[in-house]
């Protein structure tokens, strides 16, 4: 299926929750959706017969200025098509539903997005830091992050 067809199909089932489709001529187009309903939308993507996205390629968080974005890359083993779905959450309350119960692969991806960007995944069974030390402060990949001067008595800057 092309992305336009998928968009139309999602629009029929979820109406207002599907916001817009952004065309990118030199790359992959993506669909922006409402973060409040992300679990249902992704579940539909996984279970609907002609979509069948059984392979979660990637979840990435990104800092886009005023909002935090969460990007889902899905792929279907059967139909060999893929799709990019984006949801934006405000920085003050960066909460979004976890999709661990749809794809187990989401587990570590979500922990990483929480660790580095600071998106909070509601319903994740074990949302703790994964790459940085457990007592690290701040979310390093945010644009306004300042590197600490010291960690456990070791000087950090060069």
């Amino acid at each position, binding site marked *: 299926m092309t992305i336009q067809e998928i968009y139309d199909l999602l629009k029929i089932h979820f109406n207002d929750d599907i916001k817009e489709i952004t065309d990118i001529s*030199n790359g*992959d187009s993506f669909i922006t959706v409402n973060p409040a309903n992300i679990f249902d939308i992704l579940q539909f993507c996984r279970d609907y017969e002609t979509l069948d996205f*059984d*392979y979660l390629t*990637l979840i990435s968080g990104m800092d886009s200025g005023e909002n935090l974005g969460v990007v889902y890359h899905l792929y279907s083993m059967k139909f060999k098509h893929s799709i990019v779905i984006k949801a934006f959450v405000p920085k003050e309350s960066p909460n979004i539903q976890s999709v661990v119960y749809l*794809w187990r*692969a989401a587990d570590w991806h979500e922990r990483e997005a929480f660790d580095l960007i600071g998106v909070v995944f509601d319903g994740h069974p074990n949302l703790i830091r994964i*790459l*940085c030390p457990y007592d690290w402060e701040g979310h390093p*990949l945010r644009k306004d992050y300042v590197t600490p001067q010291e960690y456990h008595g070791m000087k950090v800057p060069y």
Partner: protein
Amino acid sequence: MENNLENTTNNNKINIEYSQFDSERMRLNAGPQHPSTHGVLRLEVELDGEIVTDIIPHLGYLHRCFEKHCENSNYNQIVPFVDRLDYVSAINNEFPYVMAVEKLAGIEVSEKVQILRAMCAEINRIANHLLAISAFGLDSGAFTPLLFLFREREFALGILEKLSGARLLYNYFCPGGVRYEIYSDFKKDVKVFIDSVRLAMKEMEDLLIFNDIFIKRTEKIGLLPKEVAINFACSGPVARGSGINFDIRKSAPYSSYDKFDFDIPVVEPGKEVVGVSGDCWSRNWVRVKEIEESCKILEQGITLLPDEGSVTDGIPKKLKVPAGEVYCKAENTKGELGFYLVSNGSDKPERVRARATSFVNLAILPSISKGYMFADLIMILGSIDIVLGEVDR
């Protein structure tokens, strides 16, 4: 999904009703400096006697802030950092990255470059698999295969060194082409290399792969059913060892892979050579077969690679990347490696996100190694073939 794991028959798993015994659990810390964890992985293992009941992996002991560096470097400067992700197969890492940049910037690449890139990637793949197999042998207590296979590995590194000037981390590909011209004896070297690899692998099949002790250590251990593998988004030899016919070189041919004729080794249920589909031996067997397929690709590459034409001409003087975003994937030595690149039109990318193969593949470890002996856990970890540089980035 969890139930599926439990129900698989044909399993060496030790089934004990824990409630029968009033046994005490012990917490054991493996790593981060243990040599069998292939780097600096730390596993917190809960043991009941010798049997593993729970595993908590702790990552991040090699977190080198790859994505932060990418946001602060321009597109050409990122290539060396990409090398250092999966440092055993550096060329294969550069492949999807340069493809992503080329796609965003709309750069056309000549056919000669494409074929050369594929050949380099295959040489690198062989080097990686030789290391993976020998390290796997080392985990099971066989030291000799390491000494044997490193001989051939030095050969592969030698060819790549002649091409790029570096032994391990090449910085060879760049958007638009490759950095240096091919040296004159390249084809001859590759030919000799293929022959010696084939000979070595034959030797290795007698020495290690079909060795009784080795089979006893690895068959029916760490079973990974097909559906679980898909749900965990496994790829590469881990997925193919479980019978999933998924290889990006075939399913979405990139670069020049549609010109080559090769097979994808898959261990399907019912067609196993030894053991059962999805065990440690099968995963290793896929690697052994892949070396042969890579040799085939290299053989065809020698005839396909044109003599005339330059490989450095296509590199743009000034790289201009318009705004946009792309996800480009390629078959790394360990599975699907992808780069999600977001550009805002300036000379530095806004966001580079790597779908690190080992990171995704390692996530299955806690699920597939419960109920086995602790010594088997090391084998299971070895069969997944992780590189910590990629897991932690």
